[in-house]
């Protein structure tokens, strides 16, 4: 009846670049405004700084030369958080472990997201037989339970930091691939992509220049949430004895605690701190990831 709202028909988008409406500065300030976004960012920043400090402060924790009296010392003036079964200071080990958790988490996620986006974007954009095949493969990886598969792989391969990172990465790419593909499918019909196709751009170029930047925010949100899982998985693997035996990680600390009987002897200071830190690091990623998802998809936000 009334000739009121100006209508945006899809043909009238101006310009060549995809109208993204999200810039990195915009995203960051939007996250900062949210309670959980802000908390997550602060928490994560703390851990990054903590890891850096830990790396430099305790690069060479004195492992050798402890006497029997140093074992399982309660927290006190000598050792802020006590010592473990070999007399190592819990405080120092925690600081060093921070870096490992972060590095493995981020690196494994990078592999998973890299592989996942590759498959997700090409599959979603190109469609057809290729899409069917790759989605079949992806679904297989999704259905197979991750941890048992990881355990089998880690058992067969050598124990090392790189192995762990690769194994986690190569088993986690399937879910992101599906989500990214879904996003690509939604975006593929937008005008700037159709225009690029009409102009005769090669598919590869379109994917690289147009599709990738448009799905990037969603990919980022997924990546952050995936990092949370990766950090947890690394801890679990270390606890199960599949991690790098020479490196200190929080999971490894808990494995040591368990196998040395700290739990059954009630030595809580060996058990509690590493778990708390793992949980907090995972929580920071989860909060940021959730906040990011809400920011990018306001429809799903709370009302």
């Amino acid at each position, binding site marked *: 009846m009334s000739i009121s709202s100006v209508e945006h028909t899809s043909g009238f988008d101006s310009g060549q670049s995809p109208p993204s409406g999200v810039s990195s500065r915009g995203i960051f300030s939007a996250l900062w405004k949210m309670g959980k976004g802000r908390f997550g960012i602060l928490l994560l920043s703390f851990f990054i700084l903590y890891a850096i400090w830990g790396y430099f402060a305790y690069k060479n924790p004195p492992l050798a030369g402890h006497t029997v009296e140093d074992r399982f010392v309660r927290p006190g003036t000598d050792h802020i958080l006590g010592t473990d079964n070999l007399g190592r200071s819990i405080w120092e080990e925690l600081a060093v472990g921070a870096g490992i958790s972060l590095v493995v988490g981020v690196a494994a996620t990078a592999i998973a997201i890299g592989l996942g986006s590759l498959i997700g974007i090409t599959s979603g954009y190109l469609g057809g037989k290729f899409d069917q095949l790759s989605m079949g493969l992806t679904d297989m990886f999704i259905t197979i*339970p991750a941890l048992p598969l990881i355990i089998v792989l880690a058992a067969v391969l050598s124990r090392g930091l790189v192995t762990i990172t690769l194994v986690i990465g190569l088993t986690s790419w399937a879910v992101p691939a599906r989500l990214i593909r879904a996003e690509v499918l939604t975006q593929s019909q937008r005008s700037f992509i159709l225009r690029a196709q009409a102009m005769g751009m090669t598919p590869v170029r379109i994917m690289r220049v147009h599709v990738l930047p448009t799905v990037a925010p969603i990919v980022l949100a997924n990546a952050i949430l995936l990092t949370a899982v990766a950090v947890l998985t690394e*801890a679990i693997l270390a606890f199960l004895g599949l991690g790098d035996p020479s490196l200190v990680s929080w999971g490894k600390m808990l494995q040591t605690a368990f196998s040395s009987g700290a739990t059954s002897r009630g030595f809580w200071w060996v058990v509690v701190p590493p778990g708390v830190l793992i949980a907090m690091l995972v929580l920071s990623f989860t909060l940021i990831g959730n906040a990011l998802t809400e920011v990018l998809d306001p429809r799903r936000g709370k009302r």
Partner: protein
Amino acid sequence: MEAVESLKIQFGLDGSIWSQYLRYLTKIFRFDTGISFRTRSPVADSIVPALNNTLILVGFSIILIFAIGLAIGITAGWRRGTRTDSVLTLTALTLWSLPTFWVGMILVLVFSIQFGVLPVAGIRSVAGIYSGPFDEAADILRHLILPGVTIALVSVGQIALVMRNSLAEVMDEDYMLAARSRGLRPRVVLWRHGVRNAFLPSFTLMALTLGMLMVGTIQTEAVFSWPGLGLLMFKAVGDRDFPILEASFFVIAVIVVLGTLVADLFYSRLDPRIRST
């Protein structure tokens, strides 16, 4: 040399990689899982009782997870946007961030060591002398509590979050407003209209997290020495007992796939819109 050769033949490790793989596939189809490297007895002997114990643990945990998780999720969703919602959501997120094995260790520290009320490990008391089946069941139940709560605590967070989001979406649907406009009491509207609809999408999502449940189960069995498939796998890794490793992996994978299938079938019964197509 001969001894090595005969061992190889005994365990099926002779021949090229491809022939070994072929042999493996045919054996799987005949449910022939082979001989354990360690115990020298058939793998099936170890797998079956372990499977049993794992199922007991998983079953118990699922009940806990549903009960607590749905309660938290529904409360948070019903009161979305309020302080209660934020607190519950944050709690759920925090729970989800906890490493399962660590939760187990903490629970042992607190309840077994500090307070001494619940057993540290295993499925039965060591002495194992029972006056009857109920006595045995009660003992197993005592041993079930800590491991069950361990697995549940982490997954509760996930289900609560899913249910909360699902319910929050449903709350905005017109039929909720319409139901209230007819004078139906808020409680009725919540349960018969809200939750009844919100349960559907959360059900599928929960079914997909069966894999996650196995992750928690494996860790918990390791911490509590619960004689299930997870512990079997865990020990097999250390012993490099590949037949056991393969078999337990296979069984776990089958459980997850079957569970997802069952959940799928169940879902189509719940949603009348799917049923008629």
